[in-house]
């Protein structure tokens, strides 16, 4: 029986008893994002949360692709690899598959992960490679100065789409769930407490974790998530998903609930109009991803009601675990390989 390290996601990674602080995780490099960028908040949240994990710093690796967010590894005093546009999941797969003793983090953006690197992302998720993938979604291309991205809304006016973009955006959560990722969550740059709580759960999950982080680009797409941040609207549209809790949101007369819809999905209804027993209780550990997928469709049309939190957290064996198990099985069955025996295998003949 395969041990999936259920609930012990960090068990293989060496720990330290030494007290770590935020300062230990800051590199000596000057941070060079635009002033006001949401990336600062995420960096600060990560730097201050990493010490809590108690892992040896040298066993943490940040791998990134290309884009504003992908500069992230330079600012953390861990091992880091700033790679190629879209390819971070592929590079991190080789690292994580060969080194089960590492906590490997992929930092990526909506363009990097969903456009040029879409293929690698879905395959890393379906394989359940032991990665924590942080997808900074600002719904715009920042580093190339403001073209629409695969998460931009239809009709987005940008430099490359002066008459409005034509293509329907990806919903990263739906995409990840479609690839049957074991851990899928959404959080937001401005809510440090929520962000860190989600990151902690992602880190502790052995296997592929996808965390979508709504991140504001104040230069090219400022205010994209304002309705989720503005105290006047925030609580009316944010649907906080908590495992084991009925899914309700909104305040006062506007309090609403989520229930199963007759069409097979989920729907939002006025709280006052439903019995408690009808309200959907969130089950992040449900092996069937269908309900999690249905929840990910709640914000269609976009930003009317936006689920935040852990959509799915299900254990299954991680890719490195299965790969190493094959190596161990092969060795146990036939012994460690002998090069001389290998070369002399098959039909041989001797001369002289």
């Amino acid at each position, binding site marked *: 029986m395969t041990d999936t390290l259920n609930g012990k996601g960090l068990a293989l990674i060496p720990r330290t008893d030494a007290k770590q602080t935020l300062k230990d995780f800051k590199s000596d490099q000057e941070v060079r994002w635009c002033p006001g960028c949401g990336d600062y908040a995420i960096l600060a949240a990560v730097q201050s949360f990493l010490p809590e994990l108690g892992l040896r710093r040298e066993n943490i690796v940040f791998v990134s692709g290309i884009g504003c967010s992908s500069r992230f590894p330079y600012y953390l005093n861990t091992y880091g690899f700033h*790679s190629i546009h879209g390819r971070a999941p592929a*590079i991190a797969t080789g*690292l994580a598959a060969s*080194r089960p003793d590492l906590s490997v983090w992929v930092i990526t953006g909506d363009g990097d992960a969903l456009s040029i690197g879409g293929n690698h992302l879905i395959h890393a998720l379906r394989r359940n490679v032991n990665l924590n993938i942080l997808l900074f979604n600002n719904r715009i291309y920042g580093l190339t100065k403001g073209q629409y991205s695969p998460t931009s809304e239809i009709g987005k006016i940008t430099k490359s789409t002066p008459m409005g973009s034509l293509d329907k955006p990806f919903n990263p959560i739906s995409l990840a769930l479609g690839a049957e990722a074991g851990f899928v969550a959404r959080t937001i740059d401005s809510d440090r407490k929520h962000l860190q709580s989600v990151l902690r759960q992602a880190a502790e999950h052995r296997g592929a974790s996808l965390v979508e982080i709504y991140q504001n680009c104040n230069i090219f797409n400022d205010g994209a998530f304002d309705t989720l941040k503005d105290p006047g609207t925030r609580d009316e549209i944010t649907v906080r998903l908590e495992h084991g809790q009925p899914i309700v949101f909104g305040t006062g007369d506007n309090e609403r609930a989520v229930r199963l819809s007759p069409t097979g999905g989920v729907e939002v209804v006025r709280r006052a109009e439903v019995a408690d027993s009808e309200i959907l209780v969130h089950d992040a550990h449900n092996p069937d991803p269908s309900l999690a997928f249905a929840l990910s469709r709640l914000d269609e049309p976009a930003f009317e009601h936006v689920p935040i939190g852990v959509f799915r957290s299900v254990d299954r064996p991680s890719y490195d675990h299965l790969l190493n198990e094959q190596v161990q099985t092969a060795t146990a069955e036939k012994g460690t390989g002998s090069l001389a025996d290998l*070369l002399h295998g*098959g039909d041989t003949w001797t*001369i*002289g």
Partner: protein
Amino acid sequence: MTKQVQQLDRVIIRFAGDSGDGMQLTGDRFTAETAQFGNDLSTLPNFPAEIRAPAGTLPGVSSFQLHFADHDILTPGDAPNVLVAMNPAALKANLGDLPKGADIIANTDEFTKRNLSKVGYDGNPLEDDSLSEWRLHAVPLTSLTVKALEGYDISKKDAERAKNMFALGLLSWLYHRPTEGTIQFLEAKFAKKPEIAKANIAAFQAGWNYGETTESFSVSYEIKPATLRPGTYRNISGNQALAYGLIAASVQSKLPLFLGSYPITPASDILHELSKHKRFGIRTFQAEDEIAGVGAALGAAFGGSLGVTTTSGPGVALKAETVGLAVTTELPLIVVDVQRAGPSTGMPTKTEQTDLLMALYGRNGESPVPVLAAATPSDCFTMAIEAARIALKYRTPVMLLSDGYLANGSEPWRIPEIDELPDISVLFTTEPNGDDGAYLPFKRDSETLARPWAVPGTAGLEHRIGGIEKADGTGNISYDPDNHDKMVRLRQAKIDGIDVPDLTVDDPDGDARVLVLGWGSTYGPIAAAARRVRAAGHKVAQAHLRHLNPLPANTGEVLRSYDKVLLPEINLGQLAMLLRARYLVDVISYNRVRGLPFKAAELAAVIQDVIESD
């Protein structure tokens, strides 16, 4: 009737049939018997890219050529002495290569009106006089096989399918091959279907007995074993040798091998082979695409594995950006390109040497990469270890070129003793190398210019690398103009300074005026051609490049010491252009790009022309 036995010094046999006729298997088995017998040999499989083209058609013809001799040989042979034609398509497709007087063994059962018309024969060539200039042996292989298998509990279809084993038995009789190996092979192959095993063995033996009794074959042939260098031998194909070389490199470097690969003809067999040897600690990863294959290999290299990716030309095109990242992050990586006919999809199962310039230059920026090329199937073993040696010692991606001809061709290989293999072990950096306990990931070794290699998990050496230009020493992001100029030159100097053995010249009398130079898989045909030219009383020197970047230090000197340098290549003159540019030597190119290896006779004529022309 006592049959006559004739002594021969060498024979070239071509088995040809429909893709479904099992010609590759038949060829493999005849090769194994021949290797077991002790002849020197060389093989050339030739098959369509289509898995099953329509039966009986010309595009569906699959063939396997084997050259074996009582002396050392260098190529699979130019023209077959014997053609085994399992159907009209096989006859039609191969007759053009067959010299007059050669033997044709044709399966008459398949020469039906329908099959004949499929390939455009008006009449039956076995029955009219059109084959009178060859020695035709018309044998009803299928019906003889079915008859021999009466009484076995197998379907008629399975009985017919065993006709290739009947043919193998007949050929084994004809050339006095040992049969035990094939019987054992069939027992093992069909262990789960004992009735099929028995039937195939019976068909094989029936073929042998048929040769012994029929009047159709009055002579059998004996080819004495070759005298090869003492040692233990096995037959090996280029892809298998390359896989074994990579395993040996892993053992000799004491690093776990990580292969990231995406299936592609003709490289896939390396992935298949390596995936069988997990007990060497090998991890094979079949990626979602070529880019992920090389990406994963590079990620594993960052983590301290021996990172390898295997592919063919179109795959190299896709991997280019990641190879560039390996160049600039200075991580060891082996990229194997089993070249095939291009451009684009080209002819996937046919060979070519057309990726040299891509291997050398197919990346953005100044992106120097060492390039190696194996000369023979068994040389793939040696060059795989050499690729690893250079990658690890200099912390660089290395491009190792093979091609379809080497990949699928085979030859006897003297198995090296383990202590003959080089020690290529590396030491990871575990201590700070800068002031105040700092770690400088780009502080170079003064001799090799290699940077240190500190892998994740090493305390105190945490550092960041990436594709953006790095400051010399610290590796921090740098846009400083002079730093960039310096780093570009340092990376180039590191590759230029790789220790590469001198180019050796084979010039028996030492006074030849013409040098024939080659690289990669043309070694066999060029060396065989040089022998012929010398046997005809001419003088020619021969040299072969296995290191294409950097070139051996004495290359210019060697080229300049001959009046003429002839360079045959299976491309339009890629190396010739480089040598002309670099050494200002007026290299004479000979180029053919037919998807097939050169023939020795063809090159002998070209060499002779160059010697005689003034």
